[in-house]
C-alpha cells in the first residue's frame, strides 16, 4: 500500500508512539531507497507489528521497540527479511 493509516496497539514503542495512537505509513520511501537504521517500520511477522530498525545486514533487519524493557522484538525472534516491511512511518497524527 502506498499510503495507509496504522493504529498502534500496545506499549512497546512508548514514548515515541502511545497505545491507540494513529500514524501514517507508506511503502513509497523504500521504492527508491533502502531502509535505514532508526526508521520506524510496520512489518509482517506472524502478525502486523511496528518497531524501530536497530541494525541492518545484507537483506535482513534487526528491529526493537523503543520501550526496551517492555518489547518483544528481534532480541527474541531474531533478524527479519527486509521484504517483510510493509511501510515506513512517515508522520504521527
Amino acid at each position, binding site marked *: 500500500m502506498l499510503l495507509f*493509516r496504522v493504529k498502534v496497539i500496545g506499549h512497546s514503542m512508548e514514548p515515541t508512539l502511545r497505545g491507540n495512537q494513529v500514524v501514517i505509513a507508506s511503502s513509497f520511501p523504500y521504492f527508491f531507497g533502502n531502509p535505514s537504521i532508526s526508521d520506524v517500520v510496520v512489518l509482517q511477522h506472524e502478525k502486523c507489528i511496528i518497531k524501530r530498525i536497530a541494525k541492518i545486514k545484507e537483506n535482513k533487519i534487526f528491529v526493537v521497540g523503543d520501550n526496551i524493557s517492555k518489547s518483544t522484538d528481534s532480541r527474541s525472534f531474531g533478524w527479519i527479511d527486509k521484504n517483510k516491511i510493509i511501510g515506513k512511518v512517515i508522520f504521527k497524527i
Partner: protein
Amino acid sequence: MFKITEMYYQKSYINFRMNRVLSLISRILPLRVAYAHCDIPCGIYDPNRAQLATHTVIRMTQLLGELSNEDKIKLGHDIARITSVKEEHVDVIEQELGTLEDDYFKEQHFQEFPELKGFFSSALKLSGKVRQNVDIESADLLLENILKISEIFYKTKKLEPVRLKSPYPTQREIVTYK
C-alpha cells in the same frame, strides 16, 4: 523580541492548521492495526492489581480529607507523602488498565461485551481526575468501572464473578470469583 514571539505563534498556528488538514485527509486512507506488544505469551492477567491500587487511591483521598491543620509543618509533610502514594497508585491503575485493554481483551471480548470499551474509557478519564483532585466521588466511580471490568474479565474466563465487601479500611467492595 516581539517579532520573534509573533513569528513563533504564527509558526505554531500554521503547524496546528497543517496537522488538522492532514488529519482530515488521512481519514480516507485505509486503516490497519500494528502491534507494539510485549508479547511474551505468559497468559498471566489479573484485574486484582488495578482493584487494589484503586482502593489505595480511595484510602489516600480519605486520608487527605482527614488531615488536621494544627501543625503546619506536619500538614505539609503529610500532604506530600499521601499525594505521592496516590500518584504512584494512579500510575499502577493506568498501567494495569492498559495491559488488560491492549493485551488481554481481544476483539471478540469487545464484541461480546459492547459496554467494555466504555468502562475502559471512563476509567482512564477518571484516573486523570483523581490524580488532579482530592475527589472521593470520582475515586468511587473509578472503582465501580474497574469492578465492572473485573466482572467481565472473570466472565471471559468462564468463572462466576462475585462482589464482596473488602477487608480494607476503604469500606468498599472487591470483585473476585466463585
